[in-house]
């Protein structure tokens, strides 16, 4: 596993951390890395989206969810972390009017996406407290925030040619319903967050059901047209 030096690891909101590592491995928006900073426990590395890439640096935004992310939260500049990536398909090349919809930590991939496609509108839903909104406002003409409600209620799909979504499953389901009533295809894409083991398409533990048969969240995805995904 490649080892990267941690340049920075700061809390940006309660339980939300931004880690900057020195690495030239780069990547495209919507791709992810597998990270680990432990030997045996937990056993697996953890998939984390690219939050930003700049020169020889990669940034990850993560929420403390369990054992692994808790270990990271205690790392300091100068510590090292194992990194493999970039993995996954990333977002497609967009065309037309573009919107990003992020639920909670699901906003992570959209910062880097905005840097590539700065014209996009951004919809962010938080359960308790908003964070990093400034960052998004610097890059996006329109940032809509919702706290405690349903951000998906605020978006009119008809306004956009392409809508990319990342967030908790209920949010993705809501987007799937919206999309189904609009009857469009190839417009709304979701980035899935299934548990992963190998991260590269070899073990099938992240396999999802789609209208096109089984697909691997890690290597066929994590980004899929929402109408393809069969949520279980």
């Amino acid at each position, binding site marked *: 596993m490649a080892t990267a030096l941690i340049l920075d690891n700061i809390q940006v909101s309660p339980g939300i951390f931004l880690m900057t590592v020195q690495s030239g491995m780069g990547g495209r928006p919507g791709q992810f890395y597998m990270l680990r900073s432990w030997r*045996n426990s937990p056993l697996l590395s953890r998939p984390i989206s690219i939050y930003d890439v700049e020169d020889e640096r990669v940034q990850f935004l993560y929420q403390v969810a369990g054992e692994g992310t808790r270990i990271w939260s205690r790392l300091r500049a100068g510590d090292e972390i194992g990194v493999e990536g970039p993995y996954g398909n990333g977002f497609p090349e967009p065309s037309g009017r573009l919107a990003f919809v992020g639920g909670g930590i699901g906003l992570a991939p959209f910062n880097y996406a905005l840097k590539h496609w700065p014209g996009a509108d951004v919809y962010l839903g938080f359960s308790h407290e908003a964070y990093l909104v400034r960052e998004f406002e610097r890059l996006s003409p329109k940032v809509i925030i919702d706290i405690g409600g349903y951000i998906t209620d605020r978006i009119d799909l008809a306004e956009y040619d392409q809508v990319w979504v990342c967030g908790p499953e209920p949010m993705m389901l809501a987007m799937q319903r919206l999309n189904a009533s609009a009857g469009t295809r190839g417009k709304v894409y979701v980035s899935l967050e299934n548990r992963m083991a190998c991260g590269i*398409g070899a073990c099938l533990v992240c396999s999802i059901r789609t209208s096109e048969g089984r697909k691997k969240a890690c290597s066929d995805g994590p980004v899929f047209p929402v109408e393809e995904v069969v949520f279980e």
Partner: protein
Amino acid sequence: MIDTACRIADVVFKNPIVMASGTFGFGREYARYYDLSKLGGLSGKGLTLHPKEGNSGLRVWETSSGLLNSVGLENPGIERFLAEEAPFWEPLNTVRIVNLGGHSYAEYEEGAALLEAYSLRSRVRGQAAYDLIELNISCPNVKEGGMAYGIHTETAREVVKLVRRATTLPLVVKLSPNAHDLVGMAAMCEEEGADGLSLVNTFSAMKIDIRKRRSVFQNKYAGLSGPAIKPIALRMVHEVCQAISIPVMGMGGISSAEDVIEFIMAGAETVQIGTHNFVHLRAGEELAAGLEAFMRLEGIRSLAEIRGIV
């Protein structure tokens, strides 16, 4: 010169590091990260005669030093394997193993026959796509009485007989640690003409979601692999090696060159590496190098010097 070669029937492995079925796809993905010719061999994802969707619901859960999986033999079926994967295997300079599963005697038999026919054709072309069949008699869901083929020796005997008859390829039988009488099972395989054994497959195990008050897996039980099982797997390999004389591919939780040596000292001909592939992307390459380094350090020139020494 350090000699790490191993042999099962007439198949020679350049070293004992073989990637375990189900954890390495068909090798394509890992080939992008290191040269597969560093490996002694690789065993492909378990194949069945017909394509399988695998299990629905959650497929993976971490336990203390272990991994529960419930993939359920998702695979493209033998025909698509032959069409899409076998050509990728042909030029590989490593031992290529087809892992064969099944859900009925007939399915096993037909599967083996199909593999045999393709193998003969490809050998006629002077280009073999695989060297060995690994017969997996430990898949969890089967028709007859809901009891896996790998639990009772006499049920398993039937499968081994049928497949042995259906193929001229060297045959390794992969045993389940859930077998009632593991040593009896191993002896049966030897009697029925298997060229080798591989063990262990995953341990039947369970995780309950106490908030939802149900098993985490739709199949209720799942298979446990990883470092947690290593001490038990090592004992099983040792016990089997003491009892039989065909070569054994030992596995279960191997995660270092030292672990590899332990299995060889317990009597294994080769090892297999499963879950550790997920922990270290380049596990195969690293273990092969680590093994040589260890041998050099300890002045071991050939694995034969230490095999079964314990």
